[in-house]
């Protein structure tokens, strides 16, 4: 059965849900109503599974629902967390390789040719957009795609700054590799990555002699990446952390990470005090690594990451003192900052159905779920058109991947995406897909139970597609 209801059936089911007022109809009341009308009692186990799958993937297609029903949700999650799932679908692997081939490698970027550089910039942005959206729509490792979406905002780098853009494809690949691993390892990879070293200016920081180290990375490391604004640090700590990371820089010859001892100095830190309970045992590169390990395990980081993950995967309104959030923080601690087990706990919890609330899909999510439900994956030969069209659509919708200019990443809550201007942009994006699908993005109306383009358009603009 198709996951999407036609408008006609939706209205019918809305009426039924109205009759059943008083029931828990927190989400997708229409679907529940439909089911209760046919069986006499709500099929809560299917609804429950569908709800969890919608959050763990970019669309619980009929095939996926059937597969997971047979296998069991817990087992399916375990498979999602298994890296082998990434390469399970050979045709997707080929598509992904074709996307990667469209993006310049770092050797090419050493050119001084301005026209070539502008071309590389465009192909980097379009390539990363294709990898993000087509991965969300068609990759077998759906949960990883969802987690990367979160990490790309939490550990954000922006392509808006010119040298950064060339390193973003590699940064995104790094996030994909570490999406379920230990957060402490991920922080080290992030801090050493050229994209982050350039975006938050640590590459040019130094503390030797009279130099005042650049504070940009140190501040955002605590405010955005780990403990959060209320994590207990002060302005002196920001300066100390900047000293700790002085010398974390780039190698001129390779363009890769290099620690430069001559630029490094802890200043008076060692004798002055501590940062959030941490004191350096010595200086050098090891101090920075130790600090990252410490921040990853700080109680404020545990609580904040648990809350941010619960807000994305369960409910944007969930409270910090919700049992589920507190449990997620405990799981993070017990698994030595591993993110996979936290996801597993959030998505399989008995608290999930009651805590989950409807959220407006963000633009990448909206476009990806529409394609996942209604179109086959494009063939590699159409990739050029598809990439251009996807990044054009997302530009209008306001969410080209890695294009949010500030270091805090794209906003999450529904309110940020529900302004009148944003809703009109969504309706137009859906009109474009329904009536005049750009090359490689044509939808099959029958998969939405729609008889004509008008019916399809209403389905795409309705809550079943727009909300998650």
């Amino acid at each position: 059965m198709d996951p999407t209801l036609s408008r006609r059936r939706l209205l019918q089911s809305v009426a039924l849900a109205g009759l059943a007022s008083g029931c828990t109809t927190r989400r997708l009341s229409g679907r529940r109503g439909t089911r209760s009308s046919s069986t006499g009692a709500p099929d809560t186990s299917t609804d429950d599974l569908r709800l969890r799958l919608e959050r763990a993937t970019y669309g619980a297609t009929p095939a996926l629902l059937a597969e997971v029903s047979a296998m069991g949700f817990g087992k399916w999650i375990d498979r999602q967390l298994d890296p082998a799932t990434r390469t399970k679908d050979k045709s997707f692997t080929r598509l992904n390789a074709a996307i990667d081939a469209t993006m310049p490698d770092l050797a090419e970027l050493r050119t001084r040719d301005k026209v070539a550089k502008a071309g590389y910039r465009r192909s980097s942005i379009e390539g990363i957009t294709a990898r993000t959206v087509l991965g969300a729509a068609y990759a077998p490792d759906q949960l990883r795609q969802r987690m990367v979406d979160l990490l790309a905002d939490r550990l954000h780098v922006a392509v808006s700054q010119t040298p950064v853009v060339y390193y973003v494809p590699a940064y995104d690949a790094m996030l994909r590799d570490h999406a379920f691993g230990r957060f402490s390892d991920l922080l080290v990879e992030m801090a050493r990555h050229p994209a982050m070293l350039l975006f938050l200016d640590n590459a040019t920081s130094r503390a030797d002699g009279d130099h005042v180290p650049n504070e940009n990375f140190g501040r955002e490391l605590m405010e955005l990446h780990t403990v959060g604004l209320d994590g207990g640090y002060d302005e002196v700590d920001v300066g100390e952390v900047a000293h700790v990371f002085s010398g974390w820089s780039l190698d001129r010859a390779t363009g890769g990470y290099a620690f430069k001892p001559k630029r490094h100095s802890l200043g008076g830190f060692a004798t002055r005090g501590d940062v959030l309970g941490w004191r350096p045992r010595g200086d050098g590169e090891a101090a920075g690594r130790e600090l990252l390990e410490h921040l990853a395990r700080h109680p404020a980081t545990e609580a904040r990451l648990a809350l941010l993950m619960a807000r994305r995967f369960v409910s944007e309104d969930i409270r910090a003192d919700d049992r589920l959030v507190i449990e997620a923080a405990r799981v993070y601690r017990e698994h030595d900052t591993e993110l996979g087990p936290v996801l597993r706990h959030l998505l399989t919890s008995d608290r999930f159905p009651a805590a989950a609330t409807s959220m407006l899909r963000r633009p990448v999510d909206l476009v990806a779920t529409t394609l996942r439900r209604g179109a086959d994956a494009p063939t590699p030969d159409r990739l050029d058109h598809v990439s251009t069209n996807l990044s054009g659509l997302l530009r209008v919708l306001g969410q080209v991947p890695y294009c949010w200019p500030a270091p805090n990443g794209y906003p999450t809550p529904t309110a940020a995406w529900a302004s009148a201007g944003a809703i009109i942009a969504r309706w137009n994006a859906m009109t474009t897909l329904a009536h005049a699908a750009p090359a490689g993005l044509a939808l099959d109306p029958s998969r939405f139970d729609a008889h004509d383009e008008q019916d399809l358009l209403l389905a795409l603009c309705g809550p079943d597609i727009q909300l998650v």
Partner: protein
Amino acid sequence: MTRLAIVFLRGGADGLSLLSPADDADYRRLRPTQALDPAAVHRVDDTFGLHPAARRLAGFAHAGRLAMIPACGFAGQTRSHFQAQATLEAGSEANTITGWVGRHLAATAGRTASPFRGVAVGTVSLPATFRGTSDALGTPDLSSLRLGVLRPARARQKARRVTITPAGPGLDTAAVLADWSSSPSKVAVAGANAAVAVLDRIRSSGSEHPEPEGSSGVVAAGEDEFGPGEAGSVFAAGSQVLDADLGTEVLMIDLGGWDTHNAQGTTDGRFAELVGSLDKGLGALLDRHDDLCIVVMTEFGRRVAENASGGFDHGRGSVALVLGNRVNGGVRGSWPGLAALDDGDVPAANDLRVVQAEIAETVLRTPKLDQVVPGVAGPRLDVVG
């Protein structure tokens, strides 16, 4: 009635380079490579000069149409971008969910009926400044507010234009609203209803096609008038909103890129380019809209001393600018100098929330000042006559 434009410099603009005490001995000592040449700035009084790239602003200053408030910030100023922006947009240190202009528009809902009373251009989001009213929206430009098929420009094209052409039977918005009527997401439902109100108003005002068929997006002719690049496009889009008969009282323009931790530059370079874009946009906007009052603000200033990257880390006091015919021109408020700094920063000697309150009082003529900008205690600056 005077209309208001808010220009928000996101990232924390370096007040000491925008309105520079270029002769100050401490300024020159603390900025060995990034200090402005005293001979290059546009003098506005014995202490200060505007950045060399601020040519139009200098003209407004000499004509008495520009108020400049140095050492401007707020009490308990934070060096966090996101907290400082939240405070300013809320107009309250309590960081309320609603914004200061949003509360004003809600308090004066009876004055005009229009979903366009507050418009932010260059974005699809509603800035926090406008939260708390259904009479405000964010949109890239006016021509984005109609229904149809999108033909977005390729990313390489400089002005990010979108063509929207009607297609098929069109979207039946009444049917969409019916589908949403029982949705559990109240916020999304409110957004859908607001979208329909906006489309209706655009249609009835005749602003649906503000530019000739075939062109699109921003003002087609004279784009250079508003300056280059994305900033120029946003200023042009803002001017178009003010031209349309949509009942716009407050326009908001966000400009990014002011977070200059690295290679800020002096007469030339990154900061000079930012100032040049700002200057051209402000000049063109004021040339075209004589009735406008423009306030330029930023979340914080930058550290007085430069860092190892030739840039400046987050600081406290910056500069606010107010432009228009009714402005009391010149440098206003107190200037504590750079001998006694606030933990390495220019202190917030003049309260930016006083600037907001005076604008709410004299330009917006708000009846509920104590709600719009609550708890302001700083001395008056009398920026608007």
